[in-house]
């Protein structure tokens, strides 16, 4: 099986996602980067599930998808709340507290 390709794709997605979380300052872009990491995880899980010929991987991926949806729901609500306050979703402006 061409397992390597899947793992490579997942690793690349993971790296792009981590880069996005660290480098992007727009809250929505950060959320999308987190989604990239989660999808890298899903690719990994399904590929490994196929490799071992067990269903756990697929089941795990389903759980990840469902939980990610719940997470993003909460995240977008928070982004909207901040947008209403500041008219901006720039994370650099979310800096009332320091130290």
């Amino acid at each position, binding site marked *: 099986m061409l397992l390597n390709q899947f*793992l490579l794709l*997942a690793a690349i997605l*993971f790296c792009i*996602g*981590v880069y996005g*979380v660290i480098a992007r300052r727009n*809250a929505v872009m*950060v*959320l999308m980067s*987190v989604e990239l*990491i*989660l999808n*890298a*995880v899903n690719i*990994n*899980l399904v*590929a*490994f599930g196929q*490799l*071992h010929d*067990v269903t*756990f*991987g697929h*089941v*795990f991926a389903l*759980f*990840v998808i469902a*939980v990610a949806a*719940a*997470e993003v729901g*909460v*995240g977008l*609500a*928070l*982004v909207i*709340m*901040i947008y209403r*306050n*500041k008219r901006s979703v720039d*994370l650099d402006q*979310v*800096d*009332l*507290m*320091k*130290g």
Partner: protein
Amino acid sequence: MSFVSSVFSSVGATIAQAAPDQFGEFVRPNIDWFAISPELVLLAVGALLTIVDIMLLERGKALAPSLAGLGLLAPLVPITLLALDDAGTRTFFKGAAGGAYVVDDYSLVLKAMFLLGAYIVVLISTNDIAEGDYWESEYYSMLVASVLGMVMMSSARDLISVFVALELLSIPAYMLAAWKKRDARSHEAGMKYYLMGVFASAILLYGMSILFGLTGSTVLTEIAASDAVATNTPLMTLAVVFIVVGFGFKVSAVPFHTWAPDTYQGAPLPITAFLAVSSKAAGFVGLMTMIFVGLLGQADAWEPLLWVLAAATMTVGNLIALRQTNVVRLLAYSGVAQAGFMLAPFAVGGTNPGDAVEAIVVYLLIYTAMNLGAFAVVITLARKTGSAELSSLGGGFQYAPGLTVALTIFMFALAGIPPLGGWFAKFEVFRVVVADQSLGAIALAVIMALNSVIALYYYARIASQAWFNDAPDGDNSPVPVPPSLRSAVFICAVLTVLFGVLPQTVGRFGELAGNIAGI
């Protein structure tokens, strides 16, 4: 009932007729309802809170705190019955070795701790949430949902159930941190906590997916028994590092602690107490389960990593705490430093995991009592002064002598002064670390000793502020203490003193927890 079962069996028969090769007769899985009754009761309480809110509207708000409080205590009944039951460990979804969801002494002790801790959080919340600018009924449903996640985390012994429990306890907590409707600081607290939290769980998940790929199983005991965990491969080490880092965010270990002070300062104060105590404890429970049940064979990989994390966490947390002027931020950094002490037994846990678990659980139990107490006192005093600055504590002894004594008890307990609870927590950790006798362990013990001394300075500074300074605004009118806050402070103070004077009480629970199934 017979009607329902006949409908189900006829449906099953129809499906079986339609495709006889694929579907046999439907067999109901054999579920041990008694073992999961604490979770079921908690779930029912959460549903009841929502229903009461919908049905009674405004009138329901007054009921919510007492309903939530009683509802959090109710699962203690089945937990006690389960603890007294002789049937031993109960396992769900059994695999070749162990199961995905386990009810053993370890999980029962931790469930009781989470429920009592959450009960005290409800006591702390009652007045603050009723008077502030909050959605009140939803607050308690969210709190109960988060506690349900923690209770599940105590029993989770599988990558999937650990992950689901972690998210169930985190997602309501993100919302609770941003619960102040029109306060930009609270929004910022929620946003920072959320971004760090989802990033951490994504990293954790990536580690879990590699772990699953190497071992071919999600059940932790099967992972522990697999060949992949016994051999050191770079990929395995990567999985271990990602998993430790993922939980490192949750327990606010340095260098993943940056969210903690901002979130604690901005969130509603009762939620700060909840995050600093229960949520952190849940992170430790998840880390303990993953490390000691699943990855014991990889001790060579995680012992040095957690050594560095423990040393860095307690040192950095303490040094930054020294120059804080806001009590809540100070308690946040002190919580970071305390997390360093709780990480220390991990650094030597590879040789004797049972003892390490015992020390960590004892620390968690005592930490819950003393830190919740500290927050309860700070919240009560902040009701009068309206500020959480260190200088606002001045004059405390003149207008609230009882609270000041309680504050002193909690601060000296956090510093680890006998005969208050904290000394036994630190003693247990020292005992486990020194028993290892390796050079690294001795070095860690020395770092811990130095940090205990540094910590005493800023804990004493908080207490002395209340004892010896005058009120900054000269207002010495007595502080109103609502009954729920009074009982929260009282319960925490009694437990803190009891655990210190009679350490065998909490030690017994630690011993029980040390018998974690699977190691």
